[in-house]
């Protein structure tokens, strides 16, 4: 006989709807991938990567490993919800199969098991193994989830304990889904307790004792209360499932698919593909990106952080400010536990948003360059900081490098600034122009002083030669003994430029170089966590006052150990800091140049 009661309907219908939505969207997304990515997906499924993906789903979606790394309490909270609920479902299923009297096991059966089977004390499984095993286990798991719930409530009032200052400002659907989620487990607890209490059996250490207590108070009406609670439980589940696709919790199915995509080698493109859509869906609105954003805590702009930006994209509510007010500093994506590339998504959106650009760039000069083994490309920004150029010229001469100063007489922009505004096609023309020049020179190494150029040369130019930032090249020269250096003992704080550090993944060369000419002091937030100087070319609609706030914030961090000099490896950072710094600001090339004997 199949156990059935009307109250299972909200749950069952909700579940069917949710499954339908997941299957529908997963297939839309998979089919919407570009052809090459679809191929990757098909081969991926039958490769070892499938299992790596499964493992990652387990570690990230259930255990929330990255959250743990951020903050143990935060990690535990997420894990107890996700992993706890997962175990409840899994163990409940096993339990229901063991106790089931039929072969039909509809999905609602394990969920409402206690309603259908009151007394589970006498079955063979438990008699032969551990008495009360499942009763204990299921209560324990419920408690596990409930502990997460308590923490989630505590987090509202004391986000600091969870390593957070601000939490996400949620929308209505998010709130509805959240309230359901929060109520589901306490209601389940009481429903089970009432049932166990009324029948005097079937409960574990938690539900049975609580149930017995309830019966003492409510006597015979316990049965009706229990029934009402089972309805409430089912309704809550049903509502949660139906709102899920429209709420932040949609991130769960999205993230799972995202993990598979990534494991199969699928990446974001320059325009929206399914991959980007899945990334957008995978944002859990955890709010980790909020605290790290300097625009928020230093410049009091609180509505553009990755979480809000991604939400606006998902809701098709993108506006100018949310798009253009962002330093594209990469701090949020570095911190994001889901690894969402919010910066690239913002650039894609900017591309769709930006109008056309009149210039056809026909004014670009076109003299073929001389041949040289090494090219030095200062970049537009470095032309605004002639001290860096002077230093580079001096060092290269001293080291006897046979080089050509490609943009000595004038610069054709590397293309990144216009790319940051989303104008890829126009940038492409600049890229093409410079690329031709570089290739014509026959050089084997391209050295630039500007991390902005460095990044775009590496990411977009597809050059068959070595592309180096001057910190890397100078270090190489020093190691080859080509630059004699005097000992120097100035206390120096090093600032990681966004595009060299997070953008170019080069943190060590500048430090190694500086250590040879100065004494490096500690900077509280550095490396991957380093701050933006505020000079970013990627932000368009903020006042210079707000920029100043960001600069001051970064300076506070950099001067925490009272350095005598602030060293950076980017002409733009140098200019930005010089505006406000009370100590000398120098590029590492200048520091090396100064340390060379006369």
């Amino acid at each position, binding site marked *: 006989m199949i156990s059935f009661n009307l109250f299972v309907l909200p749950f069952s219908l909700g579940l069917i709807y949710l499954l339908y939505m997941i299957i529908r969207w997963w297939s839309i997304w998979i089919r919407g991938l570009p052809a090459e990515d679809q191929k990757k997906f098909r081969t991926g499924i039958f490769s070892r990567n499938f299992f790596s993906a499964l493992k990652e789903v387990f570690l990230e979606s259930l255990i929330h490993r990255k959250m743990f790394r951020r903050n143990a309490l935060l990690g535990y909270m997420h894990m107890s919800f996700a992993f706890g609920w997962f175990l409840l479902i899994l163990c409940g299923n096993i339990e229901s199969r063991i106790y089931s009297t039929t072969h039909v096991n509809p999905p609602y059966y394990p969920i409402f098991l206690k309603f259908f089977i009151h007394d589970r004390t006498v079955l063979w499984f438990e008699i032969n193994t551990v008495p009360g095993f499942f009763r204990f286990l299921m209560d324990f798991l419920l408690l596990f989830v409930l502990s997460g719930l308590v923490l989630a409530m505590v987090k509202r009032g004391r986000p600091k304990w969870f390593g957070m200052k601000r939490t996400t400002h949620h929308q209505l659907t998010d709130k509805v889904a959240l309230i359901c989620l929060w109520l589901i487990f306490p209601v389940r607890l009481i429903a089970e307790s009432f049932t166990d209490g009324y029948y005097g059996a079937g409960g574990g250490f938690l539900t049975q004792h609580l149930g017995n207590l309830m019966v003492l108070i409510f006597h015979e009406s316990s049965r009706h209360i229990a029934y009402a609670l089972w309805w409430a439980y089912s309704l809550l589940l049903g509502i949660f499932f139906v709102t899920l696709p429209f709420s932040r919790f949609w991130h769960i199915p999205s993230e799972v698919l995202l993990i598979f995509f990534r494991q199969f080698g699928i990446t974001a493109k320059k325009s929206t593909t399914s991959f980007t859509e899945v990334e957008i869906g995978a944002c859990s609105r955890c709010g980790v990106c909020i605290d790290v954003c300097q625009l928020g805590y230093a410049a009091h702009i609180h509505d553009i952080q990755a979480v809000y930006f991604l939400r606006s994209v998902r809701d098709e509510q993108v506006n100018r400010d949310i798009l253009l007010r962002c330093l594209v500093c990469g701090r949020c994506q570095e911190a994001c536990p889901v690894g969402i590339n919010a910066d690239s998504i913002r650039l894609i959106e900017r591309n769709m948003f930006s109008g056309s650009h009149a210039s056809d760039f026909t004014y670009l000069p076109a003299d073929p360059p001389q041949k040289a083994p090494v090219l030095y490309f200062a970049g537009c920004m470095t*032309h*605004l*900081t*002639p*001290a860096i*150029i*002077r230093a580079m010229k001096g060092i290269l001469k001293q080291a006897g490098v046979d080089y050509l100063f490609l943009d000595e007489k004038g610069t054709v922009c590397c293309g990144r600034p216009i790319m940051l505004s989303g104008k890829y096609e126009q940038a492409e023309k600049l890229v093409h122009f410079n690329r031709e020049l570089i290739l014509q020179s026959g050089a084997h190494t391209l050295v630039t002083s500007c991390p902005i150029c460095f990044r775009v040369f590496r990411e977009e130019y597809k050059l068959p030669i070595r592309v180096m930032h001057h910190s890397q090249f100078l270090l190489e020269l020093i190691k080859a003994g080509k630059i004699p250096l005097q000992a120097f003992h100035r206390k120096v704080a090093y600032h990681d430029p966004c595009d060299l550090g997070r953008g170019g993944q080069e943190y060590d060369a500048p430090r190694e170089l500086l250590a040879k000419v100065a004494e490096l002091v500690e900077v509280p937030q550095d490396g991957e966590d380093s701050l933006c100087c505020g000079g970013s070319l990627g932000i368009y609609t903020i006042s*210079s*006052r707000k920029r*100043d706030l960001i600069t001051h914030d970064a300076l506070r961090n950099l001067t925490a150990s009272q350095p005598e000099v602030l060293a950076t490896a980017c002409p733009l950072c*140098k*200019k930005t800091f*010089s*505006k*406000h710094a009370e100590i000398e600001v120098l590029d590492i090339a200048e520091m090396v140049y100064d340390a060379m004997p006369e």
Partner: protein
Amino acid sequence: MAKTIVVIGGGVAGMTAASRLADLGEKVILLEREDQTGGHLRQWDRLFPNRRPGYEVLDFLMENLEHKVDVRCNQGISSVSQQPSGFSLELEAGESLPCDALLLATGFDLFDAHKKEEYGYGIYDNVITSADLEMMFRSGQKITTRQGDAPSRVGFVHCVGSRDEKVGNLYCSKVCCVTGVKQAIEIKEQFPGAEVFGFYTDLRMYDRHFEEMYYEAQQKWDINFLRGRVSECAENQDHTIVLKIEDTLTSRPLKMTVDLMVLLVGFVPSPETLRLAAMLGIVVGEDRFLEPVDEHTRSNFTIQPGVFLAGASKGPFSISNAIADAGEAALQIHEYLRTL
């Protein structure tokens, strides 16, 4: 009992206000950080618009102080605080100075041209500031490049450190345009054959005789004014300077070589002004100059009763404006003291 006023800052505004207050019978102490009064005026050779020697004005102001005002030089202030009756100043020398009213005449600093690195000040030999040029004029020697040659092409760059969001100063410094025109003429006086250029954003010839001087510069001295901002410059092998500029009247990018490039540096609030303002709780504007209670009708008052402002701590001022403003401040203080 006689009331005491302390005037902080012995520049044009401070000197004027102190002597006016003394004329009005008040007891004044003038504190000056440097070893003599005179402020920036001491650094200036000839004044616009009539190119009279700066020392004439300086001498006039100095004479007015004599025998009337208690002038104390080399007096740095370590702190200032409000007292139940008036104020108390702690001097760096250790002395403590009570007073009934304070006048902040702390003036301005010149913009540090190093901060506009793209112009190469301190990096290229032949990039100097308007203040440097003025000192050269004062020395009485002929102007030369760093290499000792007579310049045959000289460029004046307007708005260095002013009207420039990139350095954080949105305001116009008001007097650098006219200074630039004056200095350009003075270069031509020395080198009639030289080519002289002014690169400007707008020419702000706001006061009497200024426009005439600008007219003279073009008509009589054949000085070229090009509208456009210098974006960057570089140094040639021979130490001449190539500058890049967009001529915004013809919308063409230009490159030009000069032997000497003069940066017309603007006003910035001095750190000392800001430090004292913070101690006294005086409002500082977005531009970091001090904010009077009402810029039209009570421009010498601050929100702190007994603390007054005069001169360039409130923003860019010419000498004549500073003198007029300081005279008004003296009258206001005089009246304020009678209410105590």
